[in-house]
């Protein structure tokens, strides 16, 4: 042991480092807290201004939960469509296996950048009753305006770009040489996808799907144009706000949050757990 008063260079450094780290750590934590509180500000405000009496009376009114059921059902159908149709698209875009890849990417980006209200207007001209798609739907006694189908179409258009771009990034993060290695070890392409590609891309896919779910549940711009009926939760909030005022709309806003948030939170926690497991 070094005698008292003796400076041992190694020990002095070791003692100094944690103090410096602590100061920067506290700064980081403080900054993160400010950002977190700022981002959660609207949610905190919502809970602070909510009258629990109004909350229960609003939700217990006859038919009050109908829009919630509609939103959840249309959201789930949207997710199924996204997983089935957009996962392969994201994979092919990530692996550059589509002809004219930049054209595909630009198309997805354009649909991401279009304002939802404009998407709604354009959808009327694309799938409305007087279009050729509308005519085909008519043959099957269906229509793509003011129906459940219209609601799903609007939600798909509002959420698909988020999922496709997220899926593309998730698949691009899987090293192609790992897929080659799996093939050389005897796995045909489908099994390689199931055993290697999909598990490695899964955390990214889950996060993309969670974002798409949140977009679908909160879809309003396109919905208000093409699917005013059947009413989903976002439209219910809007009509309640217009007809009976802000306090009456707040309970439905809370319901929307409670329904829309668990899936993204679960996806985040699952992704983090998968990352921890890979790091051993």
């Amino acid at each position: 042991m070094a005698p008292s008063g003796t400076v041992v260079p190694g020990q002095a450094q070791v003692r100094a480092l944690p103090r410096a780290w602590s100061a920067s750590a506290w700064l980081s934590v403080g900054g993160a807290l400010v950002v977190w509180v700022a981002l959660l500000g609207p949610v905190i405000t919502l809970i602070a201004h909510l009258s629990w009496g109004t909350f229960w009376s609003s939700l217990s009114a006859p038919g009050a939960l109908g829009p919630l059921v509609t939103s959840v059902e249309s959201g789930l159908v949207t997710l199924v469509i996204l997983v089935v149709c957009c996962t392969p698209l994201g994979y092919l875009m990530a692996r550059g296996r589509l002809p004219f890849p930049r054209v595909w990417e630009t198309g997805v980006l354009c649909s991401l950048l279009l304002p939802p209200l404009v998407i709604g207007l354009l959808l009327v001209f694309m799938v409305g009753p007087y279009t050729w798609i509308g005519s085909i739907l008519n043959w099957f006694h269906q229509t793509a305006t003011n129906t459940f189908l219209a609601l799903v179409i609007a939600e798909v258009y509002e959420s698909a770009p988020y999922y496709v771009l997220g899926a593309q990034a998730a698949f691009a993060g899987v090293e192609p040489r790992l897929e080659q290695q799996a093939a050389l070890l005897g796995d045909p392409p489908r099994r390689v996808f199931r055993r290697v590609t999909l598990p490695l891309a899964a955390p990214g896919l889950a996060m993309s799907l969670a974002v798409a779910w949140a977009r679908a549940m909160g879809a309003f711009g396109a919905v208000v144009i093409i699917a005013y009926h059947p009413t989903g939760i976002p439209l219910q909030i809007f009509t309640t706000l217009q007809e009976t005022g802000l306090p009456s709309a707040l309970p439905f806003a809370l319901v929307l949050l409670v329904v829309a948030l668990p899936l993204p939170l679960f996806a985040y926690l699952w992704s983090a757990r998968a990352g921890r497991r890979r790091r051993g």
Partner: protein
Amino acid sequence: MLDADVEVDRRSFAVRAALSVGAGERVALFGPSGAGKTTVLEAIAGLVPIRRGFVSLGSRSLDGVPPWRRRIGLLRQDPGLFPHLSVRDNLLYGASSDESLAPIAAELGIDGLLGAMPARLSGGQAHRVALGRLLLAHCDALLLDEPYSGLDAGLRRTLTGLVVSLVVERSVPAVLVAHELADAQAFADRLLVLDGGSVVQSGSPSSVVRRPASRRVASLVGYLGFVASDSGVAGVHPERVMAGAHPSRGLVLSGVVSALRPAGAGWEADLRVSDTVVTCRLPEQPPGTEIDVTVLDPPYFGPDGAAISPVSSERSRLDP
């Protein structure tokens, strides 16, 4: 027996190579970066399409056979372990049963790591797991694409020795790609020198180094100087030079030491001979600046760069 004669299109040139590797034999494809060595391996593994030619393994023709049915193992510099699977699951990835898991893991010294995730492994451990995975998948041929070039020399020697013993023990043909001659020599019975997409020489590692077929091959295998003599242009390999004039042992050069630096256990000198500079390794520091050295049995090259048959009786003496 692995037989291949493949021609593969690349952006700037076509790669053409023919090789035949017997059971338990080890062949090294040696050449500079960009010569097309990896392309040849990928063509054999079925990862890149071939323009013409064939690949066969034993009695099986592999023409049109996809990679997952070839039973050819490929080890790269990146061990390519699946990060979401434990070491045990990685080892068993291509295995039909787990019977051989314990003995192979013990043989490779990774039996204590079976529960670990790949992210926790050191470079050497990861390479052992990758090798074990190929052994458990019962590959009929082994391809190695500079697998250990990122590791330190000691570990590289250990792993190369391990692969050599396993290849011999299991009698599988093995092909190594290397751009370091020492790696190729440590591994192979036979060397194929690939340059610009073509095999320019093949033979045992020592014969290729002692008797390069051309000046180009000579410079690839380490000849750092070429001096004109009566018998042609002599290639000077720094490690095949001895101090003093010994005309019976080779070509005697008299020159002026223009630079001297320590190298390993001895010295490396740049010697100016006529208008050229040759580099040579000497066990002792030269006593003065004007010295005689003997290039041991050097290869000679004609004006076209091709090797001239060895000249044993006639020796030349060159003065500065």
